[in-house]
């Protein structure tokens, strides 16, 4: 408190407002998590601790299939998006002869600038016009595209904070271009790549609108399943599934942030 008093930027009530904000941010999630352990069907009145809803969720076949689909899609989309984003980030950061870098950089961020619903209908029309019917494959392709910026940004940040002299030293010591890339650049960029891949994975796992438009019978993902359930009514089973997803996201994002922080130091 004493330090705040000296800070010229200090304003009365600012810390209270911030505390209220975090309350607003976390109360809904907390409520969701707490009532996933409720013994009764109610999602608002507490009647004792129970793991019943987790048991129900784990033994539900539809949830199992949807989870499988979600994980397959997110894994492949994250790998694809991270691979091509790494190649683009490396080229944009290290290729001296390339022209129009700013335009390429802007293009990498394009998926962020288009409302998801527009991307969704455009992709749907495109796939059905060219007659591409790969089931999960269609969804993986679409997810790869909008995961590109999320994979690209952490890798770019990592490359920019890196000391280029290390690569030059390797070249001076007669390492050829590929050896330098393999043994110097890539290991140094790796935290950025992992961080980007994790964000891409989460973004794909969470996607709803694009998947909703593209999903055919048999390619239901977890968000689609949750949506169809929530529309008809609320059950603590969804709370249980949600809690698992929240926990998973928190872990992945925290690890990703930890790797990113190592980047900064």
């Amino acid at each position, binding site marked *: 408190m004493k330090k705040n008093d000296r800070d010229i930027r200090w304003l009365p009530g600012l810390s209270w407002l911030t505390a209220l904000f975090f309350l607003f941010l976390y109360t809904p999630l907390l409520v969701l998590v707490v009532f996933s352990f409720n013994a009764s069907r109610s999602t608002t009145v507490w009647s004792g601790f129970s793991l019943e809803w987790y048991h129900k969720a784990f033994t539900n076949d539809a949830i199992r299939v949807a989870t499988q689909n979600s994980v397959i899609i997110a894994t492949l989309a994250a790998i694809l998006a991270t691979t091509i984003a790494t190649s*683009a980030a490396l080229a944009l950061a290290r290729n001296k002869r390339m022209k129009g870098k700013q335009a390429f950089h802007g293009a990498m961020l394009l998926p962020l600038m288009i409302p998801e619903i527009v991307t969704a209908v*455009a992709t749907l029309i*495109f796939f*059905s016009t060219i007659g591409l019917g790969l089931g999960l494959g269609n969804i993986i392709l679409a997810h790869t595209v909008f995961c590109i910026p999320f994979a690209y940004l952490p890798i770019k940040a990592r490359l920019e904070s890196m000391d280029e002299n290390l690569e030059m030293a390797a070249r001076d010591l007669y390492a050829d271009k590929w050896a330098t890339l393999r043994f110097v650049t890539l290991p140094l960029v790796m935290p950025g790549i992992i961080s980007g891949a994790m964000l891409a994975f989460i973004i794909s796992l969470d996607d709803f*609108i694009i998947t909703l438009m593209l999903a055919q019978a048999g390619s239901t993902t977890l*968000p689609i399943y949750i949506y169809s359930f*929530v529309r008809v009514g609320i059950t603590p089973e969804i709370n249980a599934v949600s809690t698992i997803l929240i926990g998973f996201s928190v872990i992945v994002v925290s690890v990703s*942030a930890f790797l990113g922080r190592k980047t900064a130091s």
Partner: protein
Amino acid sequence: MKSLRALLVTYAGVMPSMLMLVGFLVLPLAIILVFSFLTPGPYGGVEPQVSVAAYVKLFFQKDLYGDLTFNSSVLEIAFRSVKIAAISVLGCVLLGAPVAYYIAQQPKRRRNTLLLLITIPFWTNLLIRTYSWIIILRDNGLVNNFLISANLTEAPVKLLYTEGSVVIGLVYTYVPFMILPIYAALERLDAGLIEAARDLYASKWRSVTSVVIPLAAPGFTAGSILVFIPCLGTFVAPELLGGGKHLMLGSLVQMQFAAGRNWPYGSALAMMIMAVVLVCLTIFALNARKTGGGMQH
């Protein structure tokens, strides 16, 4: 003269990404632009016949005699979408700006932790975040249970399925997009300028309104754009929290492909959303150039 091979080598790195983006994003967008000028097929799809009927249908409808009369329903939905998106932006500013300013004042370690705490809900599933508000706002939800048990009201207050609940859901979802750019602008702010204002007998609040806020303006603009664009095309919040009664552009577009099966009309609607987004981005770009120029003095 550069050989083709040299060119290929130079651009090989960015090619895969560009192929994906052009092939699966730019090309599809171009196709719906074309489709919006075609005639709808009987079972979805299009017939190769140029027509502006889809755009006409945005504003007019055929009456019993086959004459075109002005129809404001799409405009009303568009207006409601813009209104709800704008109110959500305002809500994000009011809620997010003080938080951003508070975080900017903290020591570095604490700042990083607080920023991580703000982004974590963003990474949890959009549906889950929206669903959690149903639990809180519905008739036998937490808020109403509290109000009734505190004898503040007898019958539950209608909170869910209103425009207000849609706005709450949107603010909750997108407020990190507002905080992060404002924080980025405030973090670079030179505290000496506030000191100078205070030395010249500006009150605490005056120094905020005349020094801090103008200097952080680029952050406010960037945040507003980042919140406005997804809010405008939102689908989940009006469906779940609006109960489908407060139709917004996102749902209207989706309907044309699910049940309506009128692809050109749906495409025209999507183009309308893109037009609004482009206008916003242009304003943003012009604004950024202006403030960027102003910073150099």
